[in-house]
């Protein structure tokens, strides 16, 4: 996780719920690869996300991202769209677990909720993100942000590639 | 030379003497539409006529997917609500609990009456022949045109006479007879024809049983199917006829028929229609033991109180072995079933009682089948994929056979359980 990533920002506000990320209409889907086409379909003003998102783009959000349902679809539809990381002030606990359990990074970024409200980070801004240090630079506005460190257990699960892989590794060690 | 029922009914409506194969234009007594009133309304608006010809002759009954199980259905229903308000169509049965399956409602609300010309944008509109009406299903464009003009053309059909004598043995019902009949005459056996059911066998049947017969007329190609409007019918409509335009009509004894069949009900045994055709008849004895995943009791064919009573008589005090969906044909039937304690029997035996409507019959909701699954159903069609996946299987049977099979998890002869 030492690389520095560059990409465009898709910016969302606080309390983005799981129906806005991935609507209940499509819950019967079981193949993660089919999920990106429905991402943010119900989010007013972001209906075009699924069509226009490019691999390498970032999802940037305020507080409590992914609140609501336990559906893991809400992680897959972003992960499988090629978004390398979700950057949020905080996210719901189930959403966080679901991301970690898939080895998918969510970085908690201090102050980003206010920065979004103040327009210091906007849709289409070019970002530079270091997954290693959690440092983020908005190359368009010049704003800088810093992410929280992740706990050791979550790091271990992440680096194993997800919870199931981690458990397999642990079993192999025994 | 005498006249058939169709010649009399269409002649009365056209105000002239008519014979088979003549084309007539008539004013329909009722135009019934269900959820598809929404697309019909869209077509109607394209015609350029501002108002429907007679709003009081139009009936809307939401039943195909109620309450709305998806956004598309929800939007559709809303269009029907708006159109009926805009056009002053007061005969509107929304998703609330005064509704039910459209054909059941048309009969129990007193729209289905002897001698009337009734069209519906649903193929099972032929059900109302049980009340002596000339009723038939039409397409959406034709319905839009009927709303606009108040007229519709028919070629006076040739007629088929089915003479039924004798009595059912225990465990055998009208559904078993009609499945056997369709198996004999095949799916196109009465194409374009008016089918008349005659004889003491029919006279002894309840109106509910006659509805089951007429309902399945379309499954052997009939334009309409009809039974003689006898005293039972007159008693039933006495207090709730929705109009006074009706008149009991029946064929003359010396009428001319294109085909004639004779059946003794005493010869009928429990039967099924095997996948994937309604005319793919087998006796229950022949398919006994076939594994089943879902049982469905309901629909415009067999969702009436008489059907629920029969099924409940087998389920009482016993537990079902497979998932069993019970859908009364209307809320009126549901309430009657509740009063009689039938709902308790179904719940105690482990059935799901869904709100009245068409349910899974045409694959909309409430019990869709997965690949490889088989259902036994009291509905009227077992076409490939009708209730879900194209690799699923539907056996059509009577309420008794469905209930017996639900108890065993495989196709079962109800006479073994009785």
């Amino acid at each position, binding site marked *: 996780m030492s690389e520095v990533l560059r990409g465009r920002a898709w910016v969302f506000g*606080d*309390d983005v*719920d799981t*129906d806005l990320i991935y609507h*209940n209409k499509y*819950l*019967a*889907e*079981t193949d993660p690869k089919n999920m990106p086409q429905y991402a943010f379909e119900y989010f*007013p003003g972001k209906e075009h996300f699924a069509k226009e998102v490019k691999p390498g783009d970032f999802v940037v959000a305020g*507080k409590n991202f992914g*609140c*609501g*349902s*336990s*559906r*893991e679809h809400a992680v897959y539809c972003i992960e499988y769209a090629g978004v390398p990381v979700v950057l949020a002030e*905080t996210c*719901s*606990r189930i959403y966080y677990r*679901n991301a970690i359990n*898939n080895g998918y990074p969510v970085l908690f970024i201090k102050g980003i909720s206010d920065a979004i409200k103040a327009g210091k980070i906007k849709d289409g801004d070019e970002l530079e993100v270091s997954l290693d240090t959690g440092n983020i630079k908005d190359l368009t506005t010049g704003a800088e942000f810093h992410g929280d460190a992740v*706990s050791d*257990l979550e790091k271990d699960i992440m680096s194993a590639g*997800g*919870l*199931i892989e981690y*458990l397999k590794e642990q079993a192999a060690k025994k | 030379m005498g006249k058939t029922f169709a010649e009399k009914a269409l002649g009365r409506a056209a105000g002239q003497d008519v014979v088979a194969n003549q084309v007539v234009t008539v004013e329909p007594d009722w135009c019934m539409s269900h959820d598809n009133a929404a697309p019909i309304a869209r077509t109607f608006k394209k015609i350029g006529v501002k108002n429907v010809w007679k709003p009081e002759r139009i009936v809307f009954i939401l039943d195909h997917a109620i*309450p709305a*199980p998806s*956004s598309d259905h*929800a*939007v559709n229903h*809303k269009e029907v609500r708006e159109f009926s308000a805009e056009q002053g169509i007061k005969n509107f049965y*929304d*998703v*609330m*609990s*005064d509704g039910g399956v459209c054909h059941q409602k048309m009969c129990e609300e007193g729209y289905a009456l002897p001698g009337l010309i009734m069209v519906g944008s649903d193929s099972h509109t032929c059900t109302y022949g049980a009340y002596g009406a000339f009723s038939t299903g039409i397409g959406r464009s034709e319905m839009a045109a009927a709303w606009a003009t108040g007229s519709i053309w028919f070629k006076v059909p040739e007629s088929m006479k089915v003479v039924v004598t004798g009595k059912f043995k225990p465990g055998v019902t009208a559904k078993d007879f009609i499945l056997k009949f369709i198996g004999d005459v095949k799916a196109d056996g009465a194409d374009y024809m008016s089918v008349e059911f005659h004889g003491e066998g029919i006279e002894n049947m309840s109106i509910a049983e006659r509805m089951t017969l007429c309902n399945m007329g379309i499954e052997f190609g009939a334009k309409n199917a009809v039974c003689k409007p006898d005293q039972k019918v007159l008693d039933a409509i006495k207090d709730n006829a929705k109009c006074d335009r009706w008149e009991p009509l029946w064929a003359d004894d010396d009428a001319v028929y294109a085909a004639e069949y004779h059946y003794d009900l005493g010869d009928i045994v429990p039967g099924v229609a095997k996948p994937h055709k309604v005319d793919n008849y087998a006796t229950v004895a022949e398919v006994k033991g076939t594994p089943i995943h879902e049982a469905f009791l309901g629909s415009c064919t067999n969702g009436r109180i008489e059907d629920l009573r029969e099924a409940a008589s087998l389920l009482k005090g016993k537990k079902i072995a497979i*998932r069993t969906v019970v859908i009364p044909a209307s809320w009126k039937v*549901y*309430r009657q079933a*509740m*009063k009689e304690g039938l709902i*308790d029997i179904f719940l105690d035996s*482990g*059935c*799901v*009682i869904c*709100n009245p409507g068409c349910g899974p019959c045409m694959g909309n*909701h*409430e*019990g*869709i*089948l*997965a690949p*490889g*699954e088989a259902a036994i159903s009291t509905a009227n069609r077992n076409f490939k994929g009708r209730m*879900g*996946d194209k690799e699923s299987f539907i056996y059509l049977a009577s309420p008794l056979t469905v209930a017996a099979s639900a108890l065993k998890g495989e196709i079962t002869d109800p006479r073994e359980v009785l």
Partner: protein
Amino acid sequence: MGKTSIVKIMERASGKPVKVGDRVWCNIDWSTARDFGGANCVLQFEKEMGMEAKVWDPDKIAFTFDLQAPAHSEKVAVNQKIIRDFAKRQGIKRVFDINHGIGQHVMLEAGMIKPGDVVLGTDSHMNLLGAVGSFATGVGNSDIAASWINGTNWFRVPETMKIEVTGKFQKGVTMRDLLTKIVGDLGAGGMDFLAVEFTGETIENATLAERITLCSMVTEMSGKVPLIMPNGEVLKWMVERAGPVVAERAKEFAADPDAEYITVLKYDVTNLEPLASCPDAPDNVKPVREIAGTYVDQIHIGSCSNGRFEDIEAAFEVFKAAGCKVNPNVRVIITPSTREVQIQATKAGMVEKFLEAGVVFTNPTCSLCTAEHYGVLPSGDVGCSTTNRNFIGKVGKGSHTYLMSPMSAMATAVKGVITDPRDILG
């Protein structure tokens, strides 16, 4: 210093002393999945572990069908079949098929849940089982599939918030109104990752249905788990269903008197009034009185929050006071949470009265709350519901929903516009 309930529960589950902030591996008592997410769990488990792999303990796994029961689409039908087939292969006997009802409620009625149990489920409102003192939590399919490997999963030992409730509700005011009040006060992030113990005389006297309601929206405040230890009538009910061990467990996992809490909040319900969550967020709370007269198109009473017999009974009380009639311009849908509730309501004669008035009474399911099911709203329609989420577009694009108690919802059904139930009850 004393321990909170969640610390005690996690110590039992992990088999070692724990402290707040630790990441601990807990033994799972129940790892459950619904027809929502369940097929994803099965497919993931089989993909990762192989088709021959066995789950750690088939007697600790359960499946419930409530998302779309009976199935509304081929995809759901297939998902349900995937679950049934897997259960058969794995020897999992507890499959609560389409004829049972909402998962947590069904498992509770089946006597499966005890205080101190660790319960996972693919339902973000799984944690309402904290209403009987279990640590239940909603998770995604990876967590479930992983737990099937060896029966464990990791959790962070959370800090605990305590909410003490005193006073008696006035007529027309219910536990749902207290819950709405708390959601409004604390907001969507107000219980971030916390365990929450509800205590006080109002809670001790509350029915099981009321406790379930109160616990059902902790998720909407980002809480981890609510906890109430069974006592009185609730304990009796639990002992009848789950055995005498419930009584021992209720004692064992009760918080110590000197336990440490991150926050203690106090609520007195004496002067509480009917409240509603207005569109489009649960924490957008206003008094029902203030929004009275707002036109609605559809009323829905049910869900894991308010679908118990007592909830239907409360609605019936208002309905009866109004002469057993609802306004003909609105669609009213009542969905019991389980078949047991459906049978109770039927035998009590309430269903018959509802049906006579035009109310639609459905089979037990999550109904329109989770996914496309009975009563999806068209664009522009306004709904009124006793469910727990009113996020924008949740029950239909372009629609909006007010959340409120069964009494307020029924008062609204009676008048056709949002109505304070006290105006009908007098």
